[in-house]
């Protein structure tokens, strides 16, 4: 890998930037690998990188139906935070939070992580009770978070209508200073480039059509480009987990929903923090000046990857009520992604009924922020065959034992778009 630096920039400037090498190879699949990862999204690529780096397993292929980083890692609203209620989730998301600040240096790729702080706004006494409960739980777990008064929120987010006559009165909120946003595509590309440099094969346009099993053990995957044998296979699909799991003969306790987001035209700086409202609208301003607006999941199962009009109408109305100055702002584009939401709104990672077949799915609406932590602990799970201590509570076995990890509050009343 040719390192990126100010010197490489200057050197390439002399040749009119025509001499840059490709960031990763596009190899033909080998007949056999130690590990095949299904899905070249953020989680799959991070898993491959940490397998190679932390565990010395570089004979790995990441197979992808479409193009690398073209799924939910390119379709989220880039928010990074770790303010989750239960200890299990708080520690898992905080592992990612611990890795985010050093990620650009580690990958030699600028992921533009910007810890600009995040406000959760409460609009009723019930919201405030819920937020206080969550902040206190976080504090007990040693994770930084605090409460904000209405006056403090008005100072941090002046465009939010905090007046006593606001349609959605602001009762107060919670705050996490180390939360923020990152450049979503760069995270996928950075992990892909760093994994490629360690020998991992990224195989795009290679849809998996079946999971090969021999005597209860996984033996590889069938793809549109032929059979690829593997000692271990990992399902790391964001929106089609149920479909891929059915190829291996088991079902998952989740539902695939559509979630939308949209961005406005670029504007001058008006919001230097992230604001999530309990009215299921989240807003941040990108470095280009666009307002990035996150919505909630659509209310029925869908693989359409496009959103419905009632949800756009709801969010547009709520946006103009919360932020009256956005009334005449034009929207540039909107998009939808497919998110798998488990019944308890917590991810599923670990073993499956098929030996040596692992899953890391069901991140629902919160996948982006958890990419570094998820990849780190899941690589450990694949390499050792046993879940990493942080991942252990998130196994598929929790649905039989009854130890569900309910995070409907932290992810939003239904589920919060991010």
């Amino acid at each position: 890998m040719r390192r990126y630096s100010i010197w490489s920039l200057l050197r390439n400037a002399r040749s009119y930037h025509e001499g840059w090498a490709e960031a990763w190879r596009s190899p033909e699949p080998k007949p056999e690998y130690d590990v095949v990862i299904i899905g070249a999204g953020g989680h799959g690529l991070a898993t491959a990188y940490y397998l190679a780096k932390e565990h010395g397993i570089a004979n790995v292929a990441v197979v992808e139906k479409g193009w690398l980083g073209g799924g939910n890692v390119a379709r989220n609203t880039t928010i990074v935070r770790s303010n989750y209620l239960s200890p299990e989730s708080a520690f898992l998301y905080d592992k990612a939070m611990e890795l985010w600040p050093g990620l650009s240096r580690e990958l030699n790729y600028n992921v533009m992580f910007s810890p600009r702080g995040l406000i959760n706004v409460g609009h009723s006494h019930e919201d405030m009770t819920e937020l206080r409960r969550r902040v206190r739980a976080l504090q007990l777990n040693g994770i930084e978070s605090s409460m904000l008064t209405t006056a403090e929120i008005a100072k941090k987010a002046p465009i939010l209508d905090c007046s006593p006559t606001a349609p959605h009165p602001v009762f107060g909120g919670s705050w996490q200073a180390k939360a923020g946003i990152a450049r979503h595509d760069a995270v996928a590309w950075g992990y892909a480039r760093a994994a490629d440099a360690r020998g991992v094969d990224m195989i795009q346009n290679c849809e998996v059509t079946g999971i090969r099993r021999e005597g209860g053990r996984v033996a590889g995957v069938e793809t549109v480009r032929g059979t690829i044998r593997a000692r271990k296979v990992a399902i790391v699909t964001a929106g089609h987990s149920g479909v891929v799991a059915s190829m291996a003969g088991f079902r998952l306790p989740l539902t695939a929903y559509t979630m939308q987001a949209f961005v406005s035209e670029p504007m001058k700086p008006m919001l230097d923090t992230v604001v999530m409202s309990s009215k299921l609208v989240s807003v941040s301003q990108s470095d280009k000046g666009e307002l990035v607006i996150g919505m909630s999941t659509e209310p029925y199962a869908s693989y359409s990857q496009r959103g419905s009009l009632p949800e756009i109408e709801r969010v547009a109305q709520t946006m103009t009520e919360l932020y009256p100055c956005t009334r005449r702002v034009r929207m540039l584009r909107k998009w939808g992604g497919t998110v798998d939401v488990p019944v308890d709104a917590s991810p599923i990672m670990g073993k499956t009924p098929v030996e040596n077949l692992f899953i890391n799915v069901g991140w629902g609406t919160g996948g982006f922020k958890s990419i570094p932590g998820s990849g780190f602990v899941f690589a450990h799970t694949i390499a050792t065959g046993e879940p990493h201590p942080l991942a252990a509570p998130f196994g598929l076995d929790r649905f039989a034992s009854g130890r569900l990890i309910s995070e409907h509050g932290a992810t939003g009343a239904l589920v919060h778009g991010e």
Partner: protein
Amino acid sequence: MLLINCPWCGPRDEIEFTCGGEAHIARPADPAALSDQEWAEYLFMRKNLKGLHYERWHHSYGCRQWFNAARDTVTHEIHATYKMGETPPVVAGEDGVVKGGNS
């Protein structure tokens, strides 16, 4: 905006309805006899079909009746709606292939 044909009220806008998820999940005849794993299968595990999906809908802001719908989860096309207790209709896809039976 989907137009959903409530078997009791006729066609109405989707905002009047709530989706209740996968339909035709039979409650085990003898729940006490199930293992934890079997109970989890019944309670939580879902088919997540990409394509034709039989699911429950509730006309929450209308007659407040539950009914079933055969809907495509990719195109959102609703092939049929039918009352609770009725046999799921067999739906022929665009390719003429019959996909019924909620398999």
